[in-house]
């Protein structure tokens, strides 16, 4: 560990954390297979690997959530038996999970109170939360109920919850996926400050640029084993990718193309929300043409959920003309009726929304594909559904046990490939995709991006809502930003920059002409 900053790790100090030969197996997979890992005090240590490489399992072992089958854990040079998260916290280990561990029906303060190991009056705690959250640039309202918060806001709660306990080792599991570029920079400053105060950080990610910008050391995992340890600042993204996925990182190319007719028109869509913490949509106007991809950037909780529900038909508007699909007014239509107009939709939540977890892939084909000959006079034709599922599996290289496999048995990336594939084979005229690659590994991301681009090249209109700016810059013909329920003007990726889009994400963008102004201009 000679790469560790010498000012922080004196030769006599034992490492903050050392793992030896950690092994954990599940009925179907060996998640960790003889893993060694050493973290020095004040070190920002990346654990890099694709989804399913065993990163999360390893972190849960350190945090006492999962017990290893074999191997030992040394904490500051002493053998430690971490049997529960409470013991981990007592040692000084904090963890921000990728999937948040918050109770929906409680407020921020109540959630944090539950996790605290000592009692504290809630008023005092609320003050502490406000203090810590402003100090680290993670604004949250302590009195808000968690169910009304976006993914991004929930993560802030998780981070603040850990910071309140002044940890010696902070585990961050994929923390930046829900932050604006500026917020990522703020988070990095926070983490660097924490590190300089002596706190070690285990930073789990598959984003190579971030790791190269932030981390002192990187341990790379592949299929449950350590494939290398490196100083990420001296590596290139390609060399790290080789360690991580065993091959070069490929990217998609977007050939210039003349867009065709308008397939989706949204005209001055204003929707109030019944949810007191939801985001109302104000005067959203956009159009997506055949053969183009419109990317919608923005941090979750800025109206994405509401916009997607309004477009998919899960919430309807009183004004039929506010949403026009392929020339037909659709504002008042339900999701099934909009699908008949040629809409396909890939939702953000795969399990439970995009797919029914315990049902087979064939049955999940039937979920949205009933118009593709799978239903005849009210009766299900299972053979057609199986054939359709088989076609999706083959064309999109879905790793699974065949059309009879339950949706919940697939990994996140494979399920997403299946859902994208299913919606693609429905031959839509317009496809709306939310967070296409959230939590999906590099290989699957590439395949999904290529599938979206192929659809565009075949003349489908696509609207992609994503929090990953890199992704939007890679696949979009135009990018717009949704912030506080308002939509920015759109820009071609070549005509804008990550910085400009990042600034827009905080709501600072030139106003679109209002509906009234457009009408007067037309007259």
């Amino acid at each position, binding site marked *: 560990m000679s790469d560790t900053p010498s000012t922080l790790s004196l030769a006599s100090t034992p490492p903050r954390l050392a793992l030896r030969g950690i092994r954990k197996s*599940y*009925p*179907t997979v060996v998640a960790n297979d003889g893993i060694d890992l050493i973290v020095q005090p004040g070190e920002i240590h990346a654990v890099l690997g694709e989804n399913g490489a065993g990163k999360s399992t390893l972190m*849960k072992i350190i945090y006492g*959530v*999962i*017990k*290893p*089958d*074999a*191997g*030992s*854990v040394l*904490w500051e040079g*002493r*053998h*430690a*038996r971490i*049997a*529960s998260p409470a*013991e981990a916290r*007592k*040692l000084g280990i904090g963890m921000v*999970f990728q*999937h*948040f*561990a*918050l*109770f*929906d029906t409680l407020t921020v303060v109540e959630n944090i109170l539950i996790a605290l190991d000592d009692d504290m009056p809630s008023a005092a705690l609320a003050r502490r939360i406000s203090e810590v959250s402003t100090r680290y640039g993670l604004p949250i309202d302590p009195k808000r109920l968690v169910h009304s918060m976006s993914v991004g806001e*929930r993560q802030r709660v998780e981070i603040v919850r850990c910071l309140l306990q002044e940890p010696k080792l902070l585990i961050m599991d994929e923390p930046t996926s829900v932050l604006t570029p500026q917020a990522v920079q703020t988070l990095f400053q926070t983490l660097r400050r924490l590190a300089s105060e002596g706190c070690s950080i285990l930073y789990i990610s598959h984003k190579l640029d971030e790791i190269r910008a932030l981390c002192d050391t990187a341990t790379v995992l592949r299929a449950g084993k350590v494939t290398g340890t490196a100083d990420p600042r001296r590596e290139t993204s390609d060399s790290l990718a080789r360690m991580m996925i065993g091959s070069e990182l490929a990217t998609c190319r977007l050939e210039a193309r003349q867009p065709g007719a308008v397939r989706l028109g949204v005209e001055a869509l204003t929707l109030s929300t019944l949810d007191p913490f939801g985001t109302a949509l104000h005067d959203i106007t956009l159009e997506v043409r055949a053969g183009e991809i419109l990317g919608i950037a923005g941090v979750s909780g800025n109206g994405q959920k509401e916009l997607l529900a309004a477009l*998919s*038909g*899960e919430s309807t508007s009183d004004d039929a003309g506010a949403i026009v699909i392929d020339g037909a007014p659709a504002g008042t239509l*339900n*999701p*099934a009726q*909009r*699908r008949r107009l040629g809409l396909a*939709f890939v*939702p953000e*939540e795969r399990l*439970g*929304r*995009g*797919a*029914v*977890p*315990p*049902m087979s892939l064939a*049955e999940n084909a*039937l*979920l*949205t594909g*009933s118009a593709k000959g799978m*239903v005849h006079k*009210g*009766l*299900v034709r299972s053979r057609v559904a199986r054939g359709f599922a088989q076609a999706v599996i083959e064309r999109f290289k879905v790793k699974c046990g065949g059309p009879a496999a339950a949706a919940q*048995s697939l990994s996140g990336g494979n399920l997403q490939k299946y859902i994208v594939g299913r919606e693609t084979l429905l031959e839509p005229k317009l496809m709306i995709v939310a967070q296409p690659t959230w939590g999906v590994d590099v290989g699957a991301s590439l395949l999904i991006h290529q599938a979206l681009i192929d659809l565009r090249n075949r003349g489908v209109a696509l609207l992609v809502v994503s929090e990953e700016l890199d992704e939007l810059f890679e696949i979009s013909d135009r990018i717009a930003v949704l912030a506080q329920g308002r939509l920015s003007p759109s820009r071609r990726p070549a005509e804008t920059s990550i910085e400009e889009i990042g600034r827009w994400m905080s709501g600072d963008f030139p106003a679109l002409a209002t509906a009234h102004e457009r009408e007067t201009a037309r007259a």
Partner: protein
Amino acid sequence: MSARLRVLELERRARPSAVMRIASPLLAAAAMLATGFVVFLLLGKDPAEAFYVFFIKPVANRYGVGELLLKATPLALCALGLAVGFRANVWNIGAEGQLTMGAIAGSGVALYLGPTEAAWVLPLMLLAGVLGGMAWAAIPAFLRTRFHTSEILVTLMLVYIAQLFLSYLVHGAWRDPAGYNFPQSRAFTEAETLPLLLEGSRVTIAAVFAVALAAASWFFSQKTFAGFRMQVAGLAPAAAAYAGFSEKRNIWLALLLSGATAGLAGISEVAGPIGQLQPTVSPGYGFAAIIVAFVGRLHPLGIILASLLMSLLYLGGESAQMQMSLPSAVTGLFQGVLLFYLLAADLFINFSLRRGPRRATDDEDDAYTPEDESETEIGGVPVSAPTLAPGKLT
């Protein structure tokens, strides 16, 4: 470091166990019998004799078998309808009330149009029974789809209204003038009664309805798109909304179907073994049918088998009451215990037991053990890590 315990842990199975799905009701039945053994001992009865009286004697002859089918019929009819709703997350627990309304509506036809020996009266009574049950179930369906009221509460409360309404009728307007002031309607004529299935027993052709309905229910849930939509609504409501399946349609369908079968069960009872309208037309078939539906895994074939088991519990309870002077509560006890064990045994569909891993650090003398929390470790938390992770709740 002597406490080197290897505690049993629950581990989530890679996939739900198909074997346990079927074995679980059998395990539950076995555990119920074991509990019964202890209960009989505590009551000072010879368990062997009690078991014989409870489970064997009632069905030892042809008449007994007939009684078994007789009591299983309304249970199966109600449970088959309820299962359709339960699969779709629609919780009709008021089949007892719909059964009662079915009995009232069907009897009303006979009482107002008869007495007659005409053949048309019976189909009309059955139809009215079905419609009566449906109408009673339409109330919670309307309230739920229109005002988001809980169908659990509304269906339950309507049970008592239906029973009081029945009581009002048999004590008043519909009382048999020639019935010596007993609170009951006139007896139905032969044409107003369901034909017998087995000579020398009381089983009517309603048992055939139950079997036919089981087949229809299997077909509905396995082969029709409407059945599929209801299944999706039950398993993943968000996915149903995403696919554009109407929630209201599912709620209406589920409640009307279960109301219809409960109504059919009701009229089949009064136009069958009872033969007239009485203040009580069911010993709680509508409630016991909830247990039948779950013990039968919400599957038509399972429901048929479970209804036979539940029917046996009714018969056994009566037999034990008469011959061993055991309290009638024994029947309810067996029913409750059966459901209780079933829910417990169902845990093993998704989880398996395994010996906890030996701690690598147990052998080390300098093992770090935070003092005050070590007992949770030695006690062995009997819940696996995946269920503990509160991430599930968000």
